[in-house]
């Protein structure tokens, strides 16, 4: 196979682009593990930290299996179910034909069937494209994990994540990135404001509604457990986002650098806006670290659909607008109506859902046609993205709105169905006595294990009449099976 040669093919390959694609993908991977895992692990109550982190690690793994065996092709493969929907130039259908990404053929030049001719040929192999797209697919369920922590059954999580990734993520991705319907309509999403964040916010909210709220006691005592780890995760998120947005032009070109710069400008602006609003408008009139991290995330999410389309000025505007909007939603909406009823534990619907939607729509206003230009090969002329303020035309804004609503609708509907259907077979929610305890009841682990735990319980020894000092270590080992139940009850009585 020509592509298997070391170093690499002489045509259709650019080591610099391949290097950047793999690097960017790795930064995005770090956003999930350890980034989100420890950000969420530090934000939840102490009693839920282990469960939260294990949900993150397991989801990351599950999505990769799905992605390898059928998911990638459903998102970026040949069109499957098209209802004859045919759109000028491209835009065929809603989902790709499932297929595996195994085999040495993956070393061939990367290629997204429906985009052939619409963008220059890739300069790296299919494996690189596969992996880059995987880290995006993987982070999405980790994001809405923030909505369901503190009551969702771990078993249900293991079942739902693969289904969700297949039925929701792949479809959203195909419609907008894979050359599906909305791509054909001209809707754009630079690196996932819709496909990832709007979708995660929607899914999280619906999931939280179906699951019901956490224990009253947990909602009342929902203090984080470790702000140092929140900062660790947050920092990795910010800088990792350079790969998130910088990798999406698929080339290490000027637009990649511009996307990185815009990402940071919008984020800095949003962080400061949130911090200042906390300072001036919050009840306590104090700037807070967790508030600033919220603002930071809002900025990162908002710029995501726009990173390479807007210029620096646009990036600042997006940061200001979106941060203010989400801040208001967070303070004014959250305590009210359905937003108070539905227990979106970490507020994913605000910092990801609303922020992602803002960003997607603002592309329709602020996209600067001079930022990126696709040299059309294969017949089609070259095109670029221009928003209302530059082109005076509403078209972009309208298709952005259409795509956004489609994502919300499809994601909400399917998430609801998936949870309901799975709920018929397994309990979605942990029983209350387990919720009382948390990690200990679910995993027999605590995030900060007490150091006096011992393999040789005194009273047992006393009862057994043996001095623990001399009994062999195995004893303790074999003690386990004898009291699996006690572990449960014992734990829940100790929460």
């Amino acid at each position, binding site marked *: 196979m020509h592509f298997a040669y070391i170093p690499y093919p002489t045509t259709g390959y650019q080591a610099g682009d391949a290097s950047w694609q793999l690097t960017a993908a790795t930064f995005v991977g770090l956003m999930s593990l350890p980034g989100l895992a420890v950000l969420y692990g530090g934000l939840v109550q102490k009693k839920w930290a282990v469960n939260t982190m294990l949900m993150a690690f397991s989801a990351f793994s599950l999505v990769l299996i799905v992605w390898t065996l059928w998911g990638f092709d459903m998102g970026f493969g040949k069109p499957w179910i098209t209802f004859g929907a045919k759109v000028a130039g491209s835009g065929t259908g809603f989902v790709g034909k499932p297929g595996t990404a195994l085999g040495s053929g993956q070393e061939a030049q990367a290629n997204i069937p429906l985009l052939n001719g619409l963008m220059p040929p890739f300069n790296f192999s299919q494996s690189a494209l596969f992996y880059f797209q995987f880290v995006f697919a993987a982070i999405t369920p980790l994001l809405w994990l923030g909505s369901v922590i503190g009551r969702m059954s771990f078993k249900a999580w293991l079942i739902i994540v693969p289904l969700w990734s297949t039925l929701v993520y792949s479809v959203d991705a195909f419609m907008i990135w894979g050359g599906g319907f909305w791509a054909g309509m001209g809707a754009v999403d630079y690196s996932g404001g819709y496909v990832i964040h709007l979708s995660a916010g929607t899914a999280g909210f619906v999931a939280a509604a179906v699951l019901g709220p956490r224990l009253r006691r947990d909602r009342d005592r929902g203090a984080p457990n470790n702000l140092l780890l929140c900062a660790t995760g947050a920092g990795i998120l910010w800088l990792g986002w350079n790969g998130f947005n910088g990798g999406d032009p698929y080339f290490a070109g000027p637009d990649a650098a511009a996307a990185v710069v815009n990402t940071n400008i919008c984020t800095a602006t949003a962080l400061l806006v949130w911090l200042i609003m906390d300072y001036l408008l919050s009840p306590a009139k104090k700037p807070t670290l967790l508030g600033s991290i919220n603002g930071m995330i809002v900025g990162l999410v908002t710029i995501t659909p726009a990173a390479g389309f807007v210029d620096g000025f646009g990036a600042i505007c997006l940061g200001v607008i979106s941060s203010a909007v989400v801040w208001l939603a967070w303070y004014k909406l959250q305590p009210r109506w359905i937003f108070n009823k539905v227990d979106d534990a970490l507020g994913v619907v605000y910092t990801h859902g609303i922020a992602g939607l803002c960003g997607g729509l603002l592309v329709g206003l602020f996209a600067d046609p001079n930022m990126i230009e696709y040299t059309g090969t294969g017949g089609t002329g070259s095109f670029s993205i221009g928003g209302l303020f530059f082109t005076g035309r509403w078209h972009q804004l309208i298709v952005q709105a259409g795509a956004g609503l489609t994502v919300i609708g499809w994601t909400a509907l399917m998430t609801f169905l998936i949870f309901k259907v799975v709920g018929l077979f397994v309990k979605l929610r942990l029983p209350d006595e387990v919720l009382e305890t948390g990690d200990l009841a679910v995993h027999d682990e605590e995030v900060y*294990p007490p150091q006096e735990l011992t393999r040789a319980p005194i009273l047992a020894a006393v009862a057994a009449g043996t001095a623990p000092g001399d009994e062999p270590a195995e004893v*303790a080992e074999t003690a386990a099976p004898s009291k699996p139940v006690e572990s449960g009850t014992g*734990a829940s009585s100790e929460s």
Partner: protein
Amino acid sequence: MKLVSAIIRPQELDPARRALAAFGSPGLTVTATSVATRWNRRLEIYRSTVLVADLAQRLRVDVLAADEDAADLAAVLARVAAAAAVRGGGDDTVGVWITPVEQAVRVRTGERGAGAV
């Protein structure tokens, strides 16, 4: 003056405080402690090693009470704790006892004796 001391489970602190408040003596001291237990072991597992805690985490509640209230306060606390014990399905780790206090000073006001509770 008496000092009424009770060992209760963490979950029962709020009920206990409400009961005390209702009884009209909101003041109390809460200290984290652990008690030996035969029946309430906790099992934890790290990297397949089974570790056991046969000291159960409990709270010690101390309340200063006038002589005449002491017994009733003890009863109040015992009732709260019992409720827990039952729900917990038999608990050997809770108890209440009363010790004499010869003198007490409420710093804020400087009152002495019973008035100082």
